[in-house]
Each structure stands twice: as C-alpha cells, then as structure tokens.
C-alpha cells in the first residue's frame, strides 16, 4: 500500500505542474491582452498599463512569470482579486458555504440514488426499473441551469416552499433547494451505476451459494449483494464530491449562494479576468487533491488496483 501511495503521489506531480502551466499559458500567451481587457471598452492610460504590467510581472519572459506565480502558490499566495482582497481571504469566507452545500447535496444523492438504484436492479425489467431508467435519462439530459430555473420557479415562486435566493450567512434551510438541484444530476448517474452493479453482483456464484444454503433475501440483499456492489458507487461519489466542490458555479450563481462558485460566477459576469484565473486555479487544485484522495481510497477498497503495475 505504501508503494501504491508513493507511486500515485509521484504521478500527481507532473499533472499538477502541467495543469497550472496550462491555465497560466491560456491566460497570458493566447491572443488578447489581459491588461487591456481589464479596462473593458475604455482606452487606458499608458502609464497605468505599464504599472499594471510590472505589477503582474507581464514585462518579464513567460517562463519567469510562470515561476513567480508558482512560487506564490507554494507560499499560499493565490493573488489578489479585482476588488483588492487576497484570494485566500475570499476563499476562507466562501469555501465553508460551498462545503456545506456539497455535503448536503452528497447526502441527498447518496441516500436516494443507492436506494432507487438498488430497487431497480433487484426488479430488473419491471415497471419500477423501466420508469427509473427513463427518469434518469431525462435528468441527465437537462442542463443544470434549466433544472435550477424550474426548481426556482416551481418551489420558490409558485409553491413558496423555499426562498429563491439564499439569504445572508447562508442558513442551512436555504441551501436545501440548491442542494437538491445539484444532487439531481448525480442522482441519475448513481441510480444507473448502482443498478448495473447490483444486477452484475446478483448473478455471481457467491450469491447463488448464499441462496442455496438457505439464507433469506433480507440477509442476502444488504450483506452479499449491496455491499459488494458499492465499490464503483463509492468511487463515483468521491469523485463527485470533487465535482460538487468546483462545479457548482452555475447553481450557486442562480441561487445566489455566497460560495466559491458564486464568486467565480460574479467574476465571470463582470469580466474580471485575473480573479477568474485565480479561482479556476484554486478549483483545479481542489479537484486534483480530491481525485488523488479518491484513487487512494479506491486502492484501499479494491486490492486489485494496488497491484497493477
């Protein structure tokens, strides 16, 4: 196991360098001047442009700029947002909200997804199974902002069950509707994954043995079938946690959740280039770390993964 962890950590290094380099490259080497873009339609004062260039080290060669930037990241300095606040400070304020939202969404999709997927898998080919498959395909097809708007309109405006936007301090009851929206997409994937995994496991020899030695369904289904079907589901859930932490931009924006995603959303809408880059970098780093944790978890759950060359 130690060898596996070490190998996985070593593999993560080139990916980490590569991703940060790529983001940096995209922003500062592609056509289009980030400094000019800061000013929008106005023509900037050349002196200010020169000063900003020096401030962002844009007068240096590209590689030097990248190294300065990487040095900053290692010292925990992700830059300064457009409004002058350090990005780390904004993160300290917004990340707990996003984390709370992600945890609620993860709870909803795990409980509902595994339950529905298991029932569908055990009743393969029946009406419940067919309906679930159809509903999950429809859910997968709906873009997240469509689901968000429909939820906002139906539950917020028409039924009045929830507030359409999240209040200050993001009380947990306000986060429930956005959490349901976030959970709806992964819910469909978890249902499908659990279903096929349950069907596959139900056909295996040890399940037949369990039946033939006279065990009841009450013991076989949770102990023999479900437990052995959950490895792919658990891995998916862990990956999805990473996606929830970084991918909630649109949902957080629509429901005005004061989280990391919403900060990015606002920065995009106002066209604040440097803030967008800092936040995307941070999100990619979170995503990388979560994925690393997932791979280690997978190695822990399934010994076969560890021993592959």
């Amino acid at each position, binding site marked *: 196991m130690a060898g596996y962890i070490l190998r996985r950590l070593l593999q993560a290094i080139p990916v980490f360098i590569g991703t940060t380099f790529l983001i940096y490259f995209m922003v500062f080497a592609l056509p289009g001047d980030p400094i000019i873009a800061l000013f929008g339609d106005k023509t900037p004062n050349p002196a200010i442009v020169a000063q900003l260039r020096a401030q962002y080290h844009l007068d240096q060669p590209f590689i030097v700029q990248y190294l300065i930037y990487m040095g900053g990241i290692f010292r925990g300095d992700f830059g300064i947002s457009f409004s002058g606040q350090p990005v780390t400070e904004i993160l300290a304020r917004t990340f707990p909200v996003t984390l709370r939202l992600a945890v609620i969404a993860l709870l909803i999709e795990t409980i509902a997804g595994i339950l529905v997927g298991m029932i569908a898998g055990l009743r393969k080919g029946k009406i419940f199974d067919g309906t679930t498959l159809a509903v999950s395909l429809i859910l997968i*097809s709906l873009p997240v902002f469509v689901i968000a708007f429909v939820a906002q309109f139906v539950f917020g405006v028409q039924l009045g069950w929830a507030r359409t936007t999240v209040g200050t301090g993001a009380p947990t009851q306000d986060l429930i509707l956005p959490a349901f929206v976030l959970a709806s997409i992964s819910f469909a994937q978890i249902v499908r994954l659990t279903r096929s995994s349950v069907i596959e496991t139900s056909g295996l020899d040890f399940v037949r043995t369990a039946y033939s030695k006279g065990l009841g369904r009450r013991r076989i289904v949770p102990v023999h079938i479900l437990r052995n079907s959950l490895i792919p589901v658990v891995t998916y859930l862990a990956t999805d946690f990473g996606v929830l932490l970084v991918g909630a931009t649109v949902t957080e924006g629509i429901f005005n959740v004061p989280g990391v995603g919403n900060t990015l959303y606002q920065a995009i809408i106002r066209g604040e280039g440097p803030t967008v880059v800092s936040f995307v970098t941070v999100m990619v780093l979170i995503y990388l770390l979560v994925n690393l944790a997932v791979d280690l978890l997978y190695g822990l759950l399934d010994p076969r993964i560890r021993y592959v060359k």
Partner: protein
Amino acid sequence: MSNDFTETPVAGSAASARSRGHFVAPLEETPLVAIDAVKVAEKRSNLWIDAWRDARRRPIFWISGALIFLVLLVAVFPGLFTSVAPNNDCQLSLSNGAATAGHPLGFTKQGCDVYSRIINGTSTSLTVGIIVILLTTVLGVVFGAFAGFYGGWLDSFLSRIGDIFFSIPYILAAVVIMSVLSEYRSVWTISLAIGIFAWPSTARVLRAEILSVKQSDYVMASEALGVSKLRILFRHVLPNSIAPVIAITTISLAAAIVAEATLSFLGVGLGSDIMSWGNEINQAQRDIRTHPQTLIYPSIALSVTVFAFILMGEVIREALDPKARALR
C-alpha cells in the same frame, strides 16, 4: 434437462440406462462433413450487423432517431419552419407579449418572436456540437490509439498529457479561454475552447479497448506474418476497438451542446449577435418571475435536443456492447 446430470450414469446396458431416462445419442450420427460444412444461406454476422439488428428492434432507437432527424432538418432548413425573421421584426411594444396568431410562443423582452429565435438558434447548437466531436474524436483517437498500442514510455507520456487536460473541468477551462478570447467570440472559438479539454475521455476509452484488443490472436498472427506495426494498428486493431468511441462520441455531442449553452448562459459564450439557445436563456432569466415563457421554451428546445442525442448514445452503446445488452 435436470435428468442429464442429477443422476450418476451407471455402467451397464443401454437399455437399463434408457429406462432411467438418461440422454442417449441417436444411433444415426450426423456426419462430420455436414457439421463442418459452411452454411452459405446463413445470415452474415459481425459486430455492426448484430448491433443494427439489436437497435432496430428498440422503440427508443426510432424515437431518438426521429428527434435527431427533426433537429437536423430544422438546423439545415430553418426557413421550412418559420418565415418570421428572428431579429428584424422585433417591436418593443410587444415586449414579453403573449402568443398571438403567427407567433405561437409569444415574444421576448425585446419584442422578438420566441419561436423564430428558437428555430434559428438550432444550427448554432448543432454546429458547435459537430465541430467539438470532430475535434475530440481526432485528438482522442490519435492519443488513445498510440498510447494503447505502443505502450511503454510513449503510453506514459501521452497518458500524462491526457491526465493534465482531464484534470481541468472543461467548463472551467472553456470559461478561462473564452474570457481571454472575448474579442474573438465565434462558433469556432467556442468549439475549440470546449473540444481542447473534452478529448481525454475519448482517448481513455479507446486506450483501454486497444489494450485488450492487441492481445488477440489475429494481431499476433499479423506480427508473425511480418506486417508493419503501423499497418496492424490501422488495419486490424483500430477497426476492432472503435465501437466504444462511437457510443461515447454521440454522448459527447450532447455534452458539447450543453457546454455551449452553459457558456453562453454565463455570458462568456457566443456574442449576442449570434442566435443561440444559451443566449436566449441568459436574456430571459431576469424576467423569470413575471414571464417564465421566454425562459421555458428555449430550455425545452435545448433539453429535447440533448435528450435525443443521449438516448441515441445509449442505444448505440447497448447495441455495440453485448455485456450492456445483458443488463437490460
């Protein structure tokens, strides 16, 4: 059937065996020549023919096929479906107006015909989707095929490059590219922004498939015959491992359409001069409380199109994968 193996056969006369209900082969055996004979009349069969036979029996194949055909028709010949110009006939007096004769879905905030704008936005979505899948297929097949087939350091190198692009969620990457290229917004740049980061999933699927296909006997036979490596890859290995790529490509097309709409919705996608469902939804979101119809109709058009492609992708995936067929 249970009789065949539940009772232990006892050595003895055939008659006693028959009385116990054992299976006894008929005396007139089928001649070996007849067994080995090639039955010309039998239907030809390979993966693709099997897949087609499986798919055409399924109603959802015909439903999604019809939907895709309709969407293509609308995209190529928008004039067949509406004669109202999407931009020119706007009247502010009709702002957010209800449906009237000739304008079945009402009007946008600018007083433009919603139905006409949806019809004329179709081709944008499809064009982006098609450019993106061309890009992801070319990049994914090149990276996946060489990495899987040659293995070794080339595999490690290409796979790490894939990992780098895979680690950046492609919507976030596209957001960065499109914010930088804000002056060059067009169907091409947005497709490039999505496609550049969407290919690693195709490459991974193909690489995994090639890893198993290259163990086949026919690959070893070709090697023994002295066929060059590159020729083996393109003549034998690639055609036999392309099936999962086709399924994933259909689903990527749907994902690309969603990505374009999401970017346009965020305001970093296509310019407002280009008709696009994402732009329509972006424009309409401010009036969701009072005039939900301008938001709902483009959303329905988008969702139905995406649904059609995802459904088709599912049918293709199940038809090409005998293991997935068993799960049905």
